[in-house]
């Protein structure tokens, strides 16, 4: 009896904490349906007009396009480089393997705003501020460690004897890679692609310092508007769509390839 009561109590505590974590995101989605100019609870009326305004807003459309472009290019480069490096680290066991792993994962623990301040002044010297290559280089750097961590864990889980068996049965290296290693690494590859894209697409800390005026991503535009004009319901509507997209990606990723186990 006593354990049942304490079970129920701990469930309540846990659900409250989970609700606290998710509350801002849930409120963001909810408030996008408020028809008024400023969100108030309870809303006076509900409407979809801010979604319509968001999709027709030329500045936000171009920003979303820039965020997507930057996210796709950076993710492709980061996941490729990270996978090659992770494969080399796990299978090749180089002499300074641990030091190299720490180097690849460094941006996960070191403060990005500090790094971005340095990058800003270096880019200024090189004339790279506000250029697409400069932005891509920065985004590859912040997304690569996420992909590297997932890929290192993924390759460690693949039994090297499977590759050895295929090789001993006469499969050339390219066939081993194509038929054995890549299919087994696919869940990890998909997980790192999803996480890397989300990190790049949603980054504001680094991008807001180096974006310049030409390549304003959606988070950067929202942040600069937020400081000057406060919250604009159109932003809320786009934010709600991005959050829903993120949740769908995580839930689908969880179902298909156990995304959270690899973080």
């Amino acid at each position, binding site marked *: 009896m006593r354990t049942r009561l304490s079970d129920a109590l*701990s469930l309540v505590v846990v659900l409250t*904490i989970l609700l606290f974590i998710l509350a801002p995101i849930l409120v963001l989605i909810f408030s996008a349906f408020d028809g008024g100019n400023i969100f108030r*609870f309870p809303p006076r009326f509900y409407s979809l007009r801010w979604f319509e305004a968001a999709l027709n807003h030329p500045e936000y459309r171009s920003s979303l396009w820039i965020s997507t472009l930057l996210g796709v290019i950076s993710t492709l480069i980061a996941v490729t480089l990270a996978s090659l490096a992770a494969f080399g680290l796990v299978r090749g066991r180089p002499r300074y393997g641990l030091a190299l792993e720490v180097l690849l994962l460094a941006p996960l623990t070191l403060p990005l705003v500090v790094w971005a301040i340095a990058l800003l002044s270096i880019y200024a010297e090189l004339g790279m501020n506000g250029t697409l290559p400069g932005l891509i280089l920065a985004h590859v750097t912040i997304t690569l460690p996420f992909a590297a961590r997932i890929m290192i864990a993924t390759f460690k889980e693949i039994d090297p004897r499977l590759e050895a068996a295929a090789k001993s049965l006469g499969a050339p290296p390219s066939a081993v890679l194509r038929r054995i290693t890549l299919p087994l690494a696919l869940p990890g590859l998909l997980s790192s692609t999803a996480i890397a894209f989300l990190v790049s697409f949603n980054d504001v800390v680094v991008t807001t310092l180096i974006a310049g005026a030409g390549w304003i991503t959606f988070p950067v535009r929202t942040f600069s508007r937020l400081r000057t004009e406060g919250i604009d319901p159109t932003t809320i509507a786009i934010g709600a769509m991005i959050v829903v997209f993120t949740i769908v990606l995580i839930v689908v990723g969880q179902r298909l390839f156990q995304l959270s186990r690899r973080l």
Partner: protein
Amino acid sequence: MKPQITGMLVAPAAALMFGVFVLPFLFLLVLSFWSQVPGSLGLDTSFTLANYVRIFGDSYYLGGLWTTLWLSGLVTLICLVLALPLSRWIVLRAGRAKGLIIGLSILPLVCGALLPTLGLVNLLSPLGFINGALKSMGVIQSSLPLLGNITGVTIGLVQAFLPLMILPLITTMERLSQDYEKAATSLGARPVVVWQRILLPLLLPGIVAGSLLVFCASLTAFVTPQVLGQGKVVTFASLAYQQAALVLDWPFASALAIVMLIFLTLAGVLGALVTRNFGRVA
């Protein structure tokens, strides 16, 4: 695998991280001893301590530093108190829902700093969700001030960085055998004693790792404090951001950034000492 091939595979990523990530930190250190030529974007490359003198001689910057330090400590503590029961429940009780719950609890991490903050503004503002709900229930007459002060910033930072505490705790708890706890309980130890003598010492590496991540993240956060503090809460990272992005005094911004790094290093050393002196290995 031949060493040459291993080298070719690892080299591009390692070179990128070294050249684009590590080297700028060294440049930052050098830059913090330079100065800005007044009225221009040019740099005066003669050695000067002026930037550091300015930080440690001005109560505005010292105040910002002090606020940021205790705010980060408070956020770390709250995250720890919330993450311990949640992680334990996820590891021991969640069963099949475990993966999904971990996935959802890392949402703030992959949504970036901005989107959850937008939601928090609507949650905490005078007309927002909490105040609106409390008013319509008749609990309060006038709105609680939850935005534009330390309360709002604290809530925002805890919400944003809780996943950083949860993930290392889950990793540590999953490695921990339940036998120690069972043995202690069967020998008559009360839950408080089990926590104090068995669980906390064994979980200490995870607690320290998570606390360091949360502390560092809070110390260097500027988006959440700026938006939720509405300019009224001055944190150290937002000072550095202003100098770098708006004032364009990069040497001074670099010095502010280096001071942040020094405090992060101190926190790391403290964490290592705590683990070494109080941790137990299972």
